[in-house]
């Protein structure tokens, strides 16, 4: 036990004396949460549009005002001719142009049929689709108001939508759990694998092996400081999510923290496993980045929905620990559910942890080579 504490104290010295380690441990997580929270967002806000109004009557003015005052759009310019549309898109300032045909109001009044054309810049496909549907929604809305006054139409179907768990359709609900899963995985696995391979590189591992320390003692001594560090990180991310992005924690905080510790342990055991494979720090870093970071972002359902993936990738995503942790996080934080709804995911994480710990202890060499 005394040996274990001696080892842990030594590890803390390493962490606190290396500026780069501290930066990776605490600087990067904060930066990433803020970047993902603010920048990587698929919400529509203040999209610049232009209006090409051949009619200039009361109805077109009303629709225009309604669109601009919605908060999603911002009037950039008024155009006077079709030929100006393409140059406007090419400069990149305008994402959408709304065109009203001549005599819009009178046509609507006489035949009940007027044409409004939406032209959008689809070089970014998702945004293009989103802004056209938002615009359509606003126009439909106006039309319903109009029909409300005019009782000549007998039937209307009133569709009312409500978004459960995330009424405002906020991106942070998606990104905070995802970022947390990614950062904890990266920090834990990267830092442990690097710190173990560094001992190999410096030659100190030789003496540790010759010492009476058992492999499990070396591993535990290496890992415990990082459990503490990663846990502090997790709390930092939760606080940031709560205060900066107003992400609620609807479920039990204790359960959330326990699951976080489980996930950290898993990531650390993965890090140890990497260190038993990698010969030096560079290789450890390379494996951690390549094997952990990219798949975490792409396959965990963090950014791209798992349901849309080809079946083989869906299978691959099932072996990604972050996938299950993100489900757990979302369930507890956003849906506010308890262990009853996430026991399956928890069991999967536990299983993965024991596999990696078992493999690491088995692969940890008591000799050189």
């Amino acid at each position, binding site marked *: 036990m005394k040996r274990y*504490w001696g*080892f842990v104290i030594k590890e803390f010295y390493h962490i606190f004396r290396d500026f780069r380690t501290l930066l990776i441990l605490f600087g990067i997580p904060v930066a990433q949460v803020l970047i993902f929270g603010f920048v990587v967002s698929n919400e529509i806000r203040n999209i610049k549009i232009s209006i090409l109004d051949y009619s200039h009557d009361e109805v077109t003015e009303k629709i225009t005002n309604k669109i601009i005052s919605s908060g999603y759009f911002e009037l950039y310019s008024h155009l006077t001719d079709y030929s100006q549309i393409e140059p406007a898109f090419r400069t990149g300032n305008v994402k959408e142009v709304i065109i009203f045909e001549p005599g819009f109001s009178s046509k609507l009044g006489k035949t009940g049929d007027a044409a409004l054309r939406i032209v959008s810049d689809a070089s970014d496909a998702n945004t293009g689709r989103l802004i056209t549907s938002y615009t359509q929604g606003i126009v439909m809305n106006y039309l319903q108001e109009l029909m409300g006054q005019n009782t000549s139409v007998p039937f209307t179907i009133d569709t009312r939508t409500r978004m459960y768990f995330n009424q405002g359709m906020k991106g942070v609900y998606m990104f905070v759990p995802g970022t947390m899963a990614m950062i904890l995985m990266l920090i834990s696995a990267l830092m442990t694998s690097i710190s173990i391979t560094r001992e190999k590189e*410096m*030659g100190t591992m030789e003496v540790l092996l*010759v010492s009476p320390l058992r492999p499990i003692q070396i591993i535990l001594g290496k890992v415990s400081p990082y459990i503490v560090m990663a846990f502090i990180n997790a709390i930092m991310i939760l606080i940031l999510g709560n205060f900066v992005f107003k992400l609620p924690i609807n479920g039990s905080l204790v359960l959330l923290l326990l699951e976080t510790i489980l996930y950290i342990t898993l990531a650390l055991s993965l890090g140890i496993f990497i260190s038993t494979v990698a010969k030096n720090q560079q290789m450890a870093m390379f494996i951690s980045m390549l094997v952990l970071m990219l798949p975490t972002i792409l396959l965990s359902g963090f950014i791209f929905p798992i349901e849309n993936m080809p079946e083989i990738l869906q299978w691959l995503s099932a072996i990604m620990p972050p996938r299950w942790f993100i489900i757990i996080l979302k369930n507890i934080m956003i849906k506010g559910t308890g262990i009853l709804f996430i026991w399956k995911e928890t069991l999967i994480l536990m299983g993965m942890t024991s596999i990696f710990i078992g493999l690491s202890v088995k692969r940890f060499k008591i*000799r050189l080579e």
Partner: protein
Amino acid sequence: MSEIQVKNLHKSYGDIEALKDISFEVDKSEIFGVIGPDGAGKTSLFRILTSLLLPDSGSVMLAGLDVVKDYDKIRKIIGYMPGRFSLYQDLSVEENLNFYATVFGSSIEENYDLIRDIYVQIEPFKKRLAGKLSGGMKQKLALSCALIHRPEVLVLDEPTTGVDAVSRVEFWDLLHKIKLEGITIIVSTPYMDEAARCDRVALIQKGEIMSISKPEAIHKGFTRILYELSPGHGAYRLLKNIRNEEWCANAWLFGQSVHLTLDTNKEETEFLEYAKREKLSSKKITAGIEDTFMELMRKA
């Protein structure tokens, strides 16, 4: 019974044979030197002794324990200083020592008398980071760390490489004090002059032990005629010239001079004529360890 027994040890890495049939014994509280050039197999041998590597065949017993079977017991009784000083560069002198003490289940206080002579020299710098110490200081700290748990056998792999001459002399003085505590020391070095400070010396070359003897007896195995030639300058040109002569058995550079061995008296007279002709200053000398080593290498 000997403290260290090595029997018919073999080790190869792929096609390269690092150790070929090595056997020797070391007595309790003896300083046993393993001397040989880089790549001779010293580090492989020491790693097998410290249970870090498995031999392909042969056996090693340390204090009656088998290094393969009883590796966990062995690891409690040996002190090991690897070729590179295995210190944590970002930990201070004191922290390094404390760490190794706790890892080996000991404390600085417990064995302070053993390391006192060494530690007093580095104690003024105990708050300094190990990475900022000079080579000699690092070496003394590494030795302290290897001794902190009072091992029975001390294994030192090239402890004096990269250390200044004064520190080297001091270091050997320390080893002799440690030996008095009943600790067996096996030490490797590429420096021939350090052989004289060992109790017994094994000369190793290309994975084979060429001779084991007391340092003063090593050169007794040297039976040829040895001359030292002092050309003043141009020693290398001289070396090239005399190597072409028929009477030259072996010749090599020795600092600023050239050492030459001759097999027979007839060759000796031929050489003396040559020396007279070329106005070479030469004198007959008795062989040192290095001369013996060069001769053994030629045979091998």
